[in-house]
């Protein structure tokens, strides 16, 4: 180019290898974080499906209140008498919390690295053709975390957001005479509030999108490259998401419509 463009420095003067190839990658390494996300995510999805199985007892034809409360009581004493009292319950809860913490930590770390790697400051935002869900996992995850806290306050602890009729007292008698917490009434009382019912339904949709992309990611993070395996996971991801959203979101709707009553 002629000398009239001298104010623009030539490309040949630009130092090329600015970053030496020997510097270590960020720790913990991304592939390891992704593996942790996949493992903990699998545990959490498995828990969600078991949780759903218990929830669906509200639809049992004869005396769902009895079956639901009986089941809730059975959960507290799981693996008795192999382990005493609520030992297993707390080990179970501890595992879930650990998975949640690791999942959150890995997800946040990955997302922060992603934001830093994006580049292109001052330019217009890139267009993406599909896959909005995959890009917004951090936000759907945040909503789910807020929901978990809400859900625990609402139906486990009975504080704050719980309905005024919540009771953790052993007020329901099982056929064998054991008095247990009336979890069924607590559930119905909570879902009788329209705003709470709507919130549960909306969050279940968010959960469905989150686990749909999550289950699809599991096969990638574990390194599954076979075409058929990948298609199976795509299918499983869709099925699991549908089961979760239809199964869970139907319960507050059923309470609102008067299908489930005390």
């Amino acid at each position: 180019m002629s000398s009239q463009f001298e104010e623009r420095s030539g490309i040949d003067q630009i130092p090329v290898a600015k970053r030496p190839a020997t510097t270590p990658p960020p720790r913990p390494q991304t592939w390891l974080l992704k593996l942790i996300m996949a493992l903990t995510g699998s545990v959490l999805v498995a828990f969600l499906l078991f949780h759903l199985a218990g929830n669906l007892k509200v639809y049992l034809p004869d005396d769902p209140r009895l079956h639901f409360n009986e089941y809730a009581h059975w959960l507290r004493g799981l693996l008795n008498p192999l382990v005493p009292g609520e030992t297993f319950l707390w080990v179970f809860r501890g595992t879930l919390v650990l998975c949640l913490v690791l999942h959150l930590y890995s997800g946040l770390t990955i997302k922060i690295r992603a934001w830093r790697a994006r580049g292109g400051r001052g330019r217009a935002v890139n267009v993406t053709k599909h896959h909005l869900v995959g890009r917004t996992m951090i936000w759907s995850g945040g909503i789910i975390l807020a929901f978990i806290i809400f859900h625990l306050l609402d139906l486990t602890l009975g504080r704050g957001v719980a309905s005024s009729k919540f009771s953790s007292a052993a007020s329901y008698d099982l056929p064998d005479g054991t008095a247990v917490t009336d979890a069924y009434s607590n559930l119905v009382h909570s879902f009788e509030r329209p705003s709470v019912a709507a919130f549960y339904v909306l969050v279940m949709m968010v959960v469905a999108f989150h686990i749909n992309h999550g289950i699809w990611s599991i096969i990638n993070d574990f390194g599954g490259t076979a075409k058929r395996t990948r298609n199976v996971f795509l299918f499983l991801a869709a099925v699991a998401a549908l089961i979760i959203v239809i199964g869970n979101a139907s319960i507050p709707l059923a309470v609102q419509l008067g299908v489930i009553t005390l």
Partner: protein
Amino acid sequence: MRLILEIWRQDRPGADGRYETHEVVDATPEMSLLELLDRLNHQLVENNTDPVAFESDCREGICGTCGVDVNGVPHGPRDNVPACGQHVRDFKDGQTVRFEPFRSKAFPVLRDLIVDRTGLDRIIQAGGTIAVDAGTAPDAETVQVTHDDAERALDFAACIGCGACVSACPNGAAYLFTGSKLAHLALIPHGKQERAKRARAMVDQMEHEFGPCSQIGECALACPAEIPLSAIAVVNRERIRAGFKKGKAN
């Protein structure tokens, strides 16, 4: 055809960039996007102004030199086609077309639409080669490879290293690129001898400069070599496998 081109201009690395708007009134539908830029540059030089710097070489989709973001999508509106194979006919008369350099923190802009893609070369330097003494050319069929393996290795070897996958990725990840190299070399006999060592070195180098993968899938839509999305799973497969082969080369 009349097209309005909005083009990213940047004088040197690290300098502030800006959009410049130009009009090309004599574009024709059969022009490629690179020819459109050529036409614009012809106009700019005739008016005694500075032409737009962009890269291109073969202009038939086999070299991986050309690469621009067109309306926010690497290479242009059609999936799996390099910029040289994208045509003006995909735009409407009078439409505004925005040309930007590939986007990634690992791809610093050198000038206008040219970025420094040597980050990809450093991934290859880290281990994307075969460093075993293969001796002189062996007799045919001494080293046997099944037809399926050969075909699959060739599918992954199709990567032309253009960097569109990185620019397409909202996370700035180079998983599709790295995965295609790892998959290609892990499938052939000579490549298998350094399989674990290669996975560790290439993944380390990739993570050092590029972002993490979130399975979003934009990369496989942009890739002009049609590398399948399963290449991103290869990265984790090879790295996890290498984790079980501590200290070993294969």
